[in-house]
């Protein structure tokens, strides 16, 4: 935890993150938002800013495995936490199965909301508590706005990724 040292309001604070599996230390301003630190300071611009108010979901990242809006977290709140961004999904140059499903189903147009949609979809598919029926998926994905309106294809991509994943695991649906 943080030492109880005197901080002037503007003095930078060191934050230690595990970012896409790599330990990173960032010197951040106390009022810096995680989203802005990722994008402007750490150069990970795949996470997008659409509204900066937790309304659109374009900035969705995984914090300790949970999907969260990076625009609603101060960077200093993330001390010691593991954060995964869209850049951390593909492994060994191969698209994550959800990214591949988005490509196969044309589940995007302008692509600006896509990183957030994908991060939410990945978290959704990994959350065994969330049933896999389309009504639930639509409801669960409703925090991610797509103004191009590619919702039908996004839904198809998510459900396809679910099928492929279960095919691989040989497991049944929760």
């Amino acid at each position, binding site marked *: 935890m943080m030492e109880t040292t005197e901080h002037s309001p503007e003095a930078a604070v060191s934050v230690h993150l595990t970012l896409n599996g790599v330990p990173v230390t960032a010197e951040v301003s106390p009022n810096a938002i995680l989203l802005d630190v990722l994008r402007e300071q750490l150069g990970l611009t795949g996470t997008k800013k659409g509204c900066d108010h937790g309304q659109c979901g374009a900035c969705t990242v995984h914090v300790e495995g949970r999907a969260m809006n990076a625009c609603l977290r101060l960077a200093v709140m993330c001390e010691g936490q593991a954060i995964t961004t869209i850049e951390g999904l593909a492994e060994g140059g191969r698209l994550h199965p959800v990214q591949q499903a988005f490509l196969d189903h044309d589940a995007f147009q302008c*692509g600006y909301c896509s990183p957030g949609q994908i991060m939410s979809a990945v978290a959704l598919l990994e959350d065994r508590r969330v049933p896999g029926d389309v009504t639930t998926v639509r409801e669960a994905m409703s925090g991610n706005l797509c103004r191009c309106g590619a919702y039908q294809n996004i839904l198809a991509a998510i459900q396809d990724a679910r099928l492929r994943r279960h095919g691989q695991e040989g497991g049944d649906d929760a």
Partner: protein
Amino acid sequence: MTAIPEHHVVGRRTPRVDGEDKLTGRADYTVDHRLEDMLYGYPVPASIAHGTLESLTLDAARAMPGVVDILHHGHFPDLHRSPNSLRQGDAVSEVRLPFEDDRIHYHGQYIALVVAETFEQARAAAFRVKARYHRDAGVVTGLAASDDTGEEVGHYMRGEPELAFGIAPVILDETYTIAAESHLQLEPHATLAEWRDADQHLIVHESTQGVFYQRNALARIFDLPPERVEVISHYIGSGFGNKLFMWPHAVATAAAARWLGRPVKTVLPRQQDMMTTGHRPASRQRIRLGAEFDGSLASIQHDSLTETSTVDRYVDACGGATPSAYACDSVATHQRILPVHHGTPCPMRAPGEVSGVFALESAIDELAVALDMDPLALRLKNYAHQDPQRGLPWSSKHLDRCLESAAERFGWASRDPRIGSMGDGDEIIGQGMASATWFAGRQPCAARVTLRADGSVFAACGTQDIGTGTYTIVAQTVAELTGVPVGRVEVRLGETRLPAGPLSGGSMTTASTLPAVAAATRDALAALQEVATGPGGDFDGLYPASLGVEAGALVAEGRRVNFAEILARHRLSGVTGEGSTAPGDERQAYSFRSFGAHFVEVRWDPGISRLRVARVVSSIDVGRAINPVAARNQVEGAIVMGIGMGLLEGLDYDPRDARLINANASDYRIPVHADMPELDVELLDYPDYRFNEFGARGIGEIGLTGVAAAIANAVYHATGKRLRDLPITVETLVSPD
């Protein structure tokens, strides 16, 4: 859909060539760019809508850490205005320069631009800027609150519409209103400006639908030759019209970068984006129809009033589609505009026509009810087999096929027309339909194609891909003509250093761009044929044009030599072709429009006051779809936007002071995943070769037209309430009549 032969790429399902970049976060949108030594701009918006800025108190903000400067009226360079000419290619969205004077014309107008070392510092200081205003009396909060009928800016007439209306046995006279709508494109407007060569060269990254328009406008404003201004826009987080022409933030940012001698990036906060970068203006439309008892239309009169701002004259021409919509001898349209104290409106997807089609297609439905006629039959009864506005044949019109096909898939024949007669459990089912239409236009375009030594192909055009798939269809076109696989075609768009391309707007990009790309590709192939048939060439002595092109190789006399081998033999890095195309005289002989039909099922649950769109079945005729998957995606997305227009969306301006109340992505509601109905979209496949060699008419806008009318018509069928004001909200359904 007709089967596409194996070796063809155009017309075939092709994954987007930019998909992987977008889905991995690699795609470089404007907001993603950074430069060494870059500063951050953060605008300060006016908190009143009509008055004078009396003073700014900047001491506290200036003393904040990292603040480099604060630009404002009185502390800003002298600049020129852009002539704002479409013809000269320098149109802008707001002519007034930032900080030009101390007048405030709308809520959110910039009163200052804070520039600081970091984004956090700029934002923090912007909130410390204090302003004193003098509010003026007479604020105009919107057309709904005004009796002023505005100024007439356009009209059309044929026949004797007033006379015919006066003697028609069945008449209808109703007024329809639509709230102002926000584009709410997810990437906010953003500018990164950098000056080089002792302030003689300006490079701007901008999220724009028109790099050349912005380049030309910036050149006029900063008094530079156009070749000394570059505008770059590789990826655009969509636009829907509000990124067609430059807004003041770009001018302020470029001026700040020159003033301070460092690059400056400004990304508009969402609230400011919604206040200052345009919207579909609110409209009020009166439709008068006169008809015979058999349903024949005798008269159509369509009077429209739309808002503009007090600083610009934006005309949202609602009546644009009306003169050619139906076979009717007497038609008149009038367009008026009313200045109000809002930011300047701008085109928004299917501008004008989508508003007009809502009113007209609602009125046609009302007429069908008055005549006790099926609304589909009424539309077919008045079918315009040729363009009644211009007296010319249509190049290709299959609206009848759209109506019939969509009706069949929807199950229209089993609809019980009696109000509220169809139910399912607690829900009352309403079914409605409407026609869709959007004009087909084409712009001049230039392109360059290089066949490269490694066998790949490079294609370049200064148009943009706003999410519609332009990168992909350009690659498909080059692949089609060269036989080189799509994956080996590199496409570069969105730069003013490239050959001049059209705006990404008006559904004109495909029809404008592909002929130029094809011409450039053929020119490059001709250059290669010339090399190959020259001295020492693989086909030395043959007539160049006699060489065939097949799968990335030239072929003749049973021999086949790859492009790469030919280039290697001559030690060439590549051969390049140029293409430049423009619309021809086809418009003298034909009228060009796209058509479609939407059938909508709504479900109204009076017990819990829930109204939802459950099902949409559409058939759309846009000629040929170059990439059927991307094309269908566009139409589906447009239908989703239409659900927003019908049931959700409206900018709320305070009726006391014209302040914009809901300038955020939550209080301004757009459709989310959970709002998605069942969608069944069919694209007819009737290539329009009279329009261009690819038979494509463009697809961005048409899907939106007619959706809101079909919803309103379905709501009437379910509830008996004829709702003529958009958005339709649950409150209007539960209130007594």
